[in-house]
Every structure is written in C-alpha cells, then in structure tokens.
C-alpha cells in the first residue's frame, strides 16, 4: 500500500514538474540551426480554389527545388481561417514549420512575437537584395525601421470590378472613378431586386481594408506616428461613416450584404445580382463561379476626387502574402535557399500566374502575362496608389475591434437604425478602449 502511495505521489510529482517545465514555455534559441539540412516543412496559405489545387500548383515547384538542392520540402496547405491560430500555436510551442506563408497585414504583429527570422541585410543578400522587390510590398513586411519579419511572395491590390451587361442595360457607358460617381452609377443600377454595389459587412478583415483606404483618403491613419491607436479622429469617423452609408444612406448596397462574410458578394456579382464589387484580384474567383472573362471589366478603385495616387488619393491597401522563416528552424540554410527559390524570377512568374496575383519582384512583373487589362490595373495600383496597413504590433487587434465595429454598424444600417457621426464615433471609441493599454 505504502509503495503504491509512493508511486502515485511520484507520478503526480513528476507530472507537475513536467508541467512546470512546460510552464517555462517556448524556446529562446537565437536563430535556428542546421541540424536537419536535407528536409524542410512548409506551411502554404490556401491561395487557389481549394487545398488540392494549391498542392497541384506547388508540388511540381517543390520537386524542382529538390532536384536543384537535394532538400525535400514537406508541404502542408493551411486553410486561411486556421492559419493565424496555427502560427500562434507554433510560436508558443516552438514547434513550427521551417518556412511559412503569412498574411502580409500580420507582419508587424508576428514580428513582435519574436518567432520569425529577421531579414537583415545579410539575409536579404542571400535572396538577391532588397532592391529586387516592389517598395509597396516591402512596406508590409514589418515595423518601419526594423529588419523585416518576412519577404513578399504574392501581391494583390483592390480594384473596382463591374458587370458589363448590367452597365449596358442601365445605359451606363463609363465606369465610375470617384465615390460620388460610384453612388450615382449605383443608384442607376439598383433596381428590380438588383444592387449597385456588393460589400462583405460581416467580414472583419475586408471591413478593415475598405475603411483603412477611405481613412487615408480623409487623411486618417487609425494609428499615431508613435503607434498609438487613434480610431476616433475626424477622418477615421468620416471614413467609416462613408463606407457604411453606401448601405445606410445611398442604399446602393443590398441590406442582406450586412451578414456576408464568405465571399457571397462575389457570387452575387457572378450571378448578376450586384453590378459592382471592390475586391482584390477577383478574376480567379469569378472564373470559378462560371463567369467569363469578357463579362466583367475592371478599373482602379475610386477616390474622393481626381486620379489615384499616394496620400489622400490612396485607393487600395497593399494586399498579399509574405514568406517567413521560423526562427526555430533546424535547417536555416535550406530555409533561406527555399525563400530564394520561391522569390526567384522564374518561380515568381509561375506561381503568380497560377494564382492570378502580381509578383512583388520587379523583374518578374515585366512578363507579358501580368500586362493583361485586368492585372495591369492591379499592378499600377500597387506601384502608384496602394498603402500598407498600419505596420504596428497591434494590427491584429485593430482588425478585430474596428472590423467588429464596422460589422455592427452595417447591422444597424440593415435594421434601419440611423447611422450618424455620433453613433460611428461611439462605436470607434468603444473599439479603441478595447485595445491593450501600451
């Protein structure tokens, strides 16, 4: 009996000690090693129509890399909805992949966690130098003034997609270029159960992308220069109200859009239920929904007045995917070689063609495949009039709290409750108070 009790106590103590050791949590290793030089694991974000499509696109390239270097890459395509949580888990446990894709808006938040290998001059040298990349894409790789936490892989930008037939039926000859024109055109198109413009009112990230751009157009950044949340400035309030007013006031957005969060606005567009959408690189989705390429047109996303450009004429956020190396990698040389391979001219052309995105690598952009009418608009937007979302560690929280505020305002608009400057400001104030005090 006593021996058993001793054994039980021993087991309990051992578990507790193990637990306490686990409490110590995370590894503090500097920056990887070369213990396993022949293998790599790669978490790719889901870019294609399905995880299977991604595997079909990526596997031949990984085989090519293995032939060149003898390094075998184990691929896992991670669904978009799971990716951030998977990265957070890998960060806390220290057991992550060697190389991974991240949404470029998360760069600064993940950089703050210290899990990703910093891309200093020496590391950039290994992939051909910083100058190979488009500036706007580099602008979303981490906090300014610090070594980037990732390298741009696929770039995307917002544009205004319109249904040619709906335009012709309503007698609209010229796609809109300013917000006033969007509303005027939208009103012409909103009839017979069809809507002028589609939005994704319950999609927090999309809400953030749209109000960030409108914020820029009103001279607001949502964060101060020293990185403090600034959600209630006049410009920010005006931006959010202007976006929600497309439904609440102008009524060119169908009320049902308030609950959209799974790209339903794109399928409405493909079915001819809405005439315009503001989206990033939507061509592949339209094709998947059975829409032919000559049925839609694309023009730069609208501005308040004049032509798109920098500052208050910004008309898109810099959207896209970055590639990062996990600091704990056991194959640091192989990992940087793999990043070099994936950002090489050849692979950039292959991959961005497959995904309908724009290469963030300047030399790859010159390929005629990226000069089609649809892609040229996006390429120019990225080069001339797109801004990166605030590169602050609290970006992830910003997406959640302000994205939710916009979602709630859309719900108000859909329910017929008034959306005023005061109600917008109150929601943004509440959002700001929810941000961690720093």
């Amino acid at each position, binding site marked *: 009996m006593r021996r058993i009790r001793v054994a039980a106590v021993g087991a309990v103590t051992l578990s507790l000690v193990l*637990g306490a050791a686990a*409490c110590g*949590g*995370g590894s503090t290793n500097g920056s990887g090693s070369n213990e396993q030089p022949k293998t790599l694991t790669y978490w790719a974000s889901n870019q294609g129509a399905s995880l299977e499509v991604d595997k079909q696109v990526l596997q031949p390239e990984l085989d090519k890399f293995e032939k060149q270097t003898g390094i075998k890459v184990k691929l896992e395509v991670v669904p978009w909805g799971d990716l951030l949580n998977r990265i957070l888990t890998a960060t806390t446990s220290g057991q992550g992949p060697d190389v991974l894709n991240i949404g470029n808006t998360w760069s600064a938040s*993940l950089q703050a*966690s210290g899990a990703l290998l910093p891309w200093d001059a020496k590391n950039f040298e290994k992939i051909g130098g910083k100058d190979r990349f488009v500036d706007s894409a580099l602008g979303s790789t981490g906090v300014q003034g610090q070594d980037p936490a990732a390298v741009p892989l696929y770039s995307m930008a917002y544009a205004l997609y319109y249904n040619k037939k709906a335009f012709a039926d309503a007698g609209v000859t010229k796609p809109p270029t300013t917000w006033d024109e969007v509303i005027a055109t939208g009103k012409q198109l909103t009839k017979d159960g069809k809507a002028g413009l589609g939005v994704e009112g319950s999609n*927090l990230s999309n809400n953030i992308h749209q109000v960030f751009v409108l914020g820029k157009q009103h001279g607001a950044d949502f964060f101060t220069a020293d990185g403090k949340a600034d959600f209630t400035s006049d410009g920010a309030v005006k931006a959010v109200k202007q976006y929600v007013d497309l439904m609440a006031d102008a009524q060119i957005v169908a009320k049902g859009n308030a609950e959209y969060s799974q790209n339903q606005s794109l399928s409405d567009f493909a079915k001819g239920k809405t005439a315009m959408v503001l989206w990033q690189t939507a061509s592949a989705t339209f094709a998947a929904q059975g829409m032919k390429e000559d049925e839609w047109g694309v023009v730069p996303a609208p501005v308040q007045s004049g032509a798109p450009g920098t500052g208050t004429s910004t008309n898109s956020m810099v959207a896209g995917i970055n590639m990062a190396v996990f600091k704990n990698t056991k194959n640091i040389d192989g990992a940087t070689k793999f990043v070099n391979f994936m950002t090489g001219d050849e692979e950039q052309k292959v991959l961005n063609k497959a995904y309908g995105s724009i290469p963030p690598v300047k030399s790859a952009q010159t390929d005629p495949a990226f000069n089609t009418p649809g892609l040229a608009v996006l390429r120019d937007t990225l080069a001339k009039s797109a801004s990166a979302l605030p590169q602050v560690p609290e970006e992830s929280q910003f997406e959640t709290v302000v*994205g939710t505020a916009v979602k709630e305002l859309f719900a108000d608009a*859909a329910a017929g409750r008034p959306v005023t400057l005061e109600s917008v400001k109150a929601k943004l104030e509440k959002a700001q108070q929810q941000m961690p005090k720093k």
Partner: protein
Amino acid sequence: MTTTAPPPTGKRTVRKNHPGAAPRTRRPGRLRRISLPYLLLLPALVLELLVHLIPMVIGIVVSFKELTQFHLRDWGNAPWSGLDNYSLTVDFDAPVGEALLSSFLTTCLFTFFSVGLCWLIGTAAAIFMQETFRGRGILRTIFLVPYALPVYAAVITWAFMFQRDNGLVNHVIHDQLGLTDSPPFWLIGDNAFVTLLVVSVWKGWPFAFLVMMAGLQNIPREIYEAAALDGAGVWQQIRRITLPSLRPVNQVLILVLFLWTFNDFNTPFVLFGKSAPASADLISIHIYQSSFQTWNFGTGSAMSVLLLLFLLVVTGLYLLFTSRGRSATDA
C-alpha cells in the same frame, strides 16, 4: 451512501478469521489485491493531470501575467501583472468589463432557455415514446439524429438556412407564408439570440430524451398499473409517479446540460464566425475573442478563471440543494 459496507469492516473480518496468519507470507498477495485498483486508476490519473489539471494550472498562472504578442514566444517568462487582468475584467464601467458582463448575462439567459427547452422537449418525447406503437423504433432513431450528427456539419447547415436572402427559413416564413413585411436577419442583430437558441435546442434535446428514456425504463410498470386501478389519469401518473421517480436522473441531466450549454463554443462559432453579434455573444466566444483575436491571453485567462469559479460555485450550490431536497424526500 451509509447503507454500503465500509471497507474497514472487511479488513477486520479477515484478521478475525485468521488470527495467527503470518503477514510476511501473505503480504505480496494482499498488497497486489489492494493495490490493483490504484494501479488501474493510475493511467487515468496521469492523463487527467496532463489533459485537465496542468493546463488549468497554466491558465491560472497566465491570468496573472501580461501575455500579449510581445511575449508569446517565451511566454513562460512574460512579466507578472499581479491582479491587473482581474481588475480589468471586473471593472464593469470600462469597455472590457462592460462587454464581459453583458456577455455573461446573455449567456445566463441563453442557458436558462436552452436547458429549459431541451429538458421539456426531451422529457415530453421520452414519455410519449414509452407507449408502444408502430414506427416507434424509426421515430426514436430520427429523434437521435441531431445528437449523432457532427456538430460542425449540422450547425453550418443551420447557418445556410438562416441566411437572410437565400436561406430556407426566410423562404418559408416570408416568401411562402408572408408572415413578415421584409425578410428578417437571423445571423446579425437582435434575432441572432433566437437563432442560437433554436440551433442549441435542436442539438441538445436528443440528449435529454436519451437520458430520460433510460430513466423511464427503470420505473416499474406495476406502480402505474396500481395507480391506474386507483383511478389516476395519465396526467396524474406523470405528475405523481414519473417526475418524482426521475428526480435523480434529472439532477444529473440538468447539471450536465447546464455546463455544456454555458460553455458551448462550437454552435456560436460556426453560426456567427469569430465575432458574434452582441445579442448572441456567449461567454466562450467572448473569451476566445479576448484571447486569440486581440492576442491578450492574460485577460482571456483571467476571464476563464472567473468563469471556472462561477461554474464551480453554481455546481456546488446546485448539488448541495438538490441532494438536501433528496434526502428530505427519502426520509
């Protein structure tokens, strides 16, 4: 409890029967016999520690730390923040505490209705199914379908059905029956509470039904027959025999339903995504959002600890009162 034989009595009997037994020769066998249950329990004990207790202890530790994105990688060494996380979560005048309180009250209301309806429907169905009739087996199987379906698949189907413009629910109540002027929203705004309740009850009542069926089968038929002879009608039989006999079953059933419903994460998460409408912002989703969406794991952990304490107190009080009541009726 007191009617079962206490173990020491057994021990004494053994000694009495073998007064001159040599302990040395018998010890290994006895030891093995006594230790066997403990040995069998050991794996479960270790697993319980690993799966429940250690994470719980870590959660409590984290609730006293300032764990944000800045310390994720080396989270064991995140700075201590004392009671800051707790004071933030219980400051009901500030947005974090205010939102938590509102979420807590929503969850209480939701749990009350959901558990009540699950119990009511489950019990009614179980009593109804006591009678033998043609097709009873098939009906019983159909009743259990919601319980057997994978939660995600079932709830996502409900989410489709509750869509405003393309959903089946609005198609029926608005397009076909014309009950509303305009198709209502179910997944955003105030109606979201009703949506959540409907799905939760749909998912939960078959469990109540299953447990009640088992409970009902333990009531001897003779009592009903005797009652019927004495002139008791169906309603009187239910009130005077069925429900009192089911008391111990109900005690467990309601407790389990309460704990499951109060902590339900899957239903609101699949229905509404990462950010539930205020009217249906259940506490589990709220804590998830505080931890994983705003990367404030310390505050999220403090909320979890408070929730755990609340559930412990409620469960304790519930067990105390229900067993008191029971011993009173037994006496």
